């Protein structure tokens, strides 16, 4: 008798991902799907997609997904959750979307304590549009709009979204994770599940920032991109829990 150690989650359908080879957007989709299934809420889940490479995620999830205008996913999710409080509502947003054009929406969704769950994919660049600098691009990192690399003098230091949102009272669960190796992926899944649990218990806003790769626009092989997350991203964006609803007041 054999037992299944791993097979594709039933939260994802058979449509093939359009993501580039080795892009960790795919791993993050799997973790969201697995979490919804394990919590028994896939049938009640409603996703809100952002603008960026994951805009097309509605094609892949076996739950309803609404696509929002650039940066506005938290506002759309707010509307859905307030009208349908019995549903489990999440946003899936990139760093160009959430940390740049959508900075106001995410801050105020957290500030109002909206009972939604945000999965924030930080790949330190605008992926979909071909590699422009994001607020999260590291110092020295090259982008099409910073061909010599980002400098603090010109663009300031990269924005630490998880730390910033953790200062807001309505944000009851805030954690930064990564998916650069199997152990990190296992931890990331625990955090995503807990961020949904925060919503299920009606505690308030929850966000998981996931350090992710963009091998195509970083100009690296997928495997080297995982290495760069560990060597360059994690030292600036430390992993760990910043707020948990058990202790948040």
């Amino acid at each position, binding site marked *: 008798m*054999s*037992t*299944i*150690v*791993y*097979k*594709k*989650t039933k939260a*994802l359908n058979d449509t*093939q*991902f359009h*993501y*580039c*080879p*080795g*892009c*960790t*957007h*795919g*791993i993050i989709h*799997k973790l969201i799907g697995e979490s919804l299934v394990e919590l028994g809420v896939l049938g009640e889940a409603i996703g809100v997609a952002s603008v960026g490479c994951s805009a097309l995620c509605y094609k892949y999830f076996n739950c309803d997904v609404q696509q929002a205008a650039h940066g506005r996913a938290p506002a759309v999710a707010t509307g859905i959750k307030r009208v349908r409080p019995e549903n489990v509502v999440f946003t899936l947003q990139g760093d160009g979307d959430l940390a740049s054009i959508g900075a106001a929406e995410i801050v105020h969704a957290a500030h109002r304590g909206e009972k939604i769950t945000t999965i924030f994919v930080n790949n330190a660049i605008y992926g979909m549009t071909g590699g422009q600098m994001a607020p999260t691009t590291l110092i020295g990192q090259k982008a099409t709009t910073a061909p010599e690399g980002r400098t603090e003098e010109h663009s300031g230091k990269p924005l630490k979204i998880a730390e910033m949102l953790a200062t807001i009272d309505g944000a009851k669960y805030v954690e930064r994770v990564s998916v650069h*190796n*199997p152990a990190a*992926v*296992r931890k990331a899944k625990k955090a995503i599940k807990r961020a949904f649990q925060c919503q299920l218990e009606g505690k308030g806003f929850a966000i998981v920032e996931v350090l992710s790769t963009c*091998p195509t626009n970083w100009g690296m*092989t*997928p*495997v080297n991109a*995982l290495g760069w997350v560990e060597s360059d991203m994690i030292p600036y964006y430390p992993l760990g829990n910043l707020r948990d609803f058990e202790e948040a007041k």
Partner: protein
Amino acid sequence: MAKGLVTFNEDICKGCELCVAVCPKKIIELDQSKINAKGFHPAHVVNMDECIACGNCAIMCPDSVITVEKL
């Protein structure tokens, strides 16, 4: 005796080698003798006998190509 059985949905593999990189037994390779419909050499296990069914390869595969069973 093999402890694990790893199967690949070869048609949708993108040859990214994340599974290759994280296998503790180093038994996964891209199969240079095949090209799938997407134009990639799909990943495969070269020595199933050494597989310990840890699941690392499947956890890291962004495209859900891999199923792992423990025997």
